[in-house]
């Protein structure tokens, strides 16, 4: 009695099968599958064919998770194969349910592992592409500096010649376009420098009120040209003198205002500065640029801060420029973030908070204001003699332009050299007042030549002033030039006036 029940409850997932050495089924209890006696078990499923090797091994072998479809059912069984004197005893244990639930768990696990791996790979690839894109753009921008310098110089020389009004107007356009191009180039290079960690925040004391006044002066006119209003309001309690990076702050604010101007066709642009907090010797200020422009749609709100992204507006695509990206990155350097509110069709507001230290006691600000005065290019202090300049430059465009600029002043006698070896010869035979030298020269580069000159035993040669010219504006490469012994380094593209100013100053 009891053993019938026992059988029912304990053995219903197990089937015992006895086969002979050739695989013929001798006996089977048929609990799971009804196997035909007297036939080869190999016909049941290809799994059994491999049992031949168990005969040879003479040891019990356990197989796990074998899938055996039988009639309309799929059995997933563990199989124990034990050699016995008749042949082989097989014990099939039905674990279909167990394996099915194990399958589900493994499915989830494997899928998530694979998905994670592919996501990581994808991100790596994107980062790689971003790096490549950036370095490509950086190199490309450097390459553009030479021709831009030439164009700029030629425009200026042309401006000094007789021209009709119409020609002058065209020249103005040309100059304007060239300046825009140059600014874009500078922006691109700034981004590269920020990304490469080569741009550092340099703090100094400056007059914040003057700073605001300058912005009003600049942007009132610019806005008016476009038929817009520009206004700037600041809290009276904001200290006049603060310590911070004036240049970068200027870059951030002007980028935001320029951007507002670009996207506003009517109405006004408002620049406000509010006092968040003033404590000990620290002020925290909020800067806000508000416009009544086209506004930014929800989907574009992140994209506008990305470099070289195009944003769709009114069905057309428009380059957003790099201004916002630069502002965002510079603010990050100053531990601040740019924020934005915008309604499509109504306008946008960009704002950020910044802290400044401010001196509690100040003598006067006379020094500051005198610094701000723009010096005129004057050469009155110089002798009336013609100064001898050696111009070392391998790029013929730049060479001719520089040559013309210098010649036009009627103050210099100019020799040309293209190559490092030539320079040294020239230097020894002529007594130059100044050497103007490209840093990137074939064979011997500008730094090497400078070092050689500085090592000369003769004082008059050794001490010849050297001005370097480079398209590479990175701080470290400029530092390298100075270390080699150059007095000053001018980065391309530069304006004619800057060059002359520098030359006059050094000759003094």
């Amino acid at each position, binding site marked *: 009695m009891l053993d019938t029940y026992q059988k029912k409850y304990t053995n219903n997932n197990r089937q015992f099968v006895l086969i002979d050495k050739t695989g013929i089924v001798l006996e089977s209890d048929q609990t799971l599958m009804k196997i035909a006696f007297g036939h080869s078990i190999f016909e049941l499923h290809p799994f059994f064919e491999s049992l031949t090797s*168990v005969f040879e091994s003479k040891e019990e072998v356990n197989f796990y998770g074998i899938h055996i479809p039988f009639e309309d059912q799929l059995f997933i069984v563990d199989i124990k194969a034990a050699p016995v004197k008749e042949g082989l005893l097989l014990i099939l244990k039905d674990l279909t349910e167990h394996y099915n639930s194990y399958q589900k768990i493994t*499915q989830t696990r*494997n899928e998530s592992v694979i998905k994670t*791996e592919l996501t990581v790979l994808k991100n790596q690839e994107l980062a790689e592409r971003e790096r490549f894109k950036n370095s490509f753009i950086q190199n490309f921008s450097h390459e553009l500096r030479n021709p831009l310098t030439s164009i700029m110089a030629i425009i200026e020389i042309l401006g000094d010649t007789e021209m009709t009004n119409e020609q002058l107007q065209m020249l103005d356009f040309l100059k304007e376009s060239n300046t825009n191009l140059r600014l874009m180039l500078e922006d691109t290079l700034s981004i590269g420098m920020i990304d490469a960690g080569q741009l550092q925040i340099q703090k100094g004391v400056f007059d914040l009120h003057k700073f605001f006044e300058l912005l009003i002066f600049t942007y009132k006119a610019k806005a008016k040209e476009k038929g817009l209003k520009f206004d700037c309001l600041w809290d009276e309690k904001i200290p006049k003198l603060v310590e911070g990076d004036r240049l970068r702050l200027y870059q951030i604010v002007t980028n935001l205002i320029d951007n507002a101007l670009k996207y506003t066709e009517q109405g006004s642009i408002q620049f406000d500065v509010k006092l968040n907090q003033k404590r000990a010797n620290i002020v925290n200020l909020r800067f806000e640029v508000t416009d009544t422009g086209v506004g930014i749609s929800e989907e574009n709100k992140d994209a506008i801060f990305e470099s070289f992204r195009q944003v769709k507006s009114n069905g057309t695509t428009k380059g957003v420029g790099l201004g916002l990206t630069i502002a965002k990155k510079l603010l990050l350097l100053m531990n601040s973030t740019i924020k934005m509110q915008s309604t499509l069709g109504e306008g946008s507001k960009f704002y950020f908070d910044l802290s400044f230290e401010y001196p509690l006691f100040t003598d006067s600000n006379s020094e500051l204001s005198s610094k701000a005065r723009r010096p005129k290019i004057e050469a009155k202090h110089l002798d009336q003699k013609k100064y001898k300049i050696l111009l070392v430059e391998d790029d013929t465009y730049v060479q001719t332009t520089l040559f013309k600029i210098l010649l036009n002043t009627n103050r210099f006698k100019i020799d040309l050299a293209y190559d490092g070896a030539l320079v040294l010869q020239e230097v020894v035979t002529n007594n130059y007042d100044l050497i103007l030298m490209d840093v990137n020269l074939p064979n011997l580069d500008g730094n090497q030549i400078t070092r050689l000159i500085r090592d000369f035993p003769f004082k008059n040669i050794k001490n010849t002033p050297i001005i370097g010219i480079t398209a590479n504006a990175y701080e470290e490469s400029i530092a390298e030039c100075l270390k080699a012994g150059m007095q000053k380094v001018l980065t391309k593209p530069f304006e004619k006036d800057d060059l002359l100013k520098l030359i006059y100053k050094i000759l003094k």
Partner: protein
Amino acid sequence: MQKSKKIVVLGHFGVGKTSLIRRFVTDTFSDNYKVTIGVHITKKVVEISVENEVSLILWDLEGTDDIATIRNSYLLGTHGAVFVFDVSRPSTFEHLKDDLKIISDKMPKVPLMVVGNKSDLVTESELKEVLDEQEISVDFLTSAKTGKEVNTLFLKLATLLTTDA
């Protein structure tokens, strides 16, 4: 009776072992991934030359990221082995050399084919990069999806097994 040869197909999970066998046996492919648990065994008779047929018994093993954990009973009586990795997922071939060493220790003298699958997912040059990194030579670059090199792989192994015997 036909000669029959047991071939085990192993490798990390998700590399396409099941898909390769499915392509070879039924010439079909599915984009859906269904994890194999335990082992699926199928059979296919191939004609190596006229009057020379061999029946391949293909053991499609559960994938694992640790080859050492494969149960020895699965490998018992194996005539040939195929190790599959996924060319689009470095984790499946990062330790190729070690994995192959474990396999040949477990099954000395068993011919082994090393297969990079999913070749349709990467470009020629990426593929070359992957291969150049390996000290081991890869025997086949397959795609279960397009069927590329799949039959060639199994036929080559079948030929190898029948001429050796």
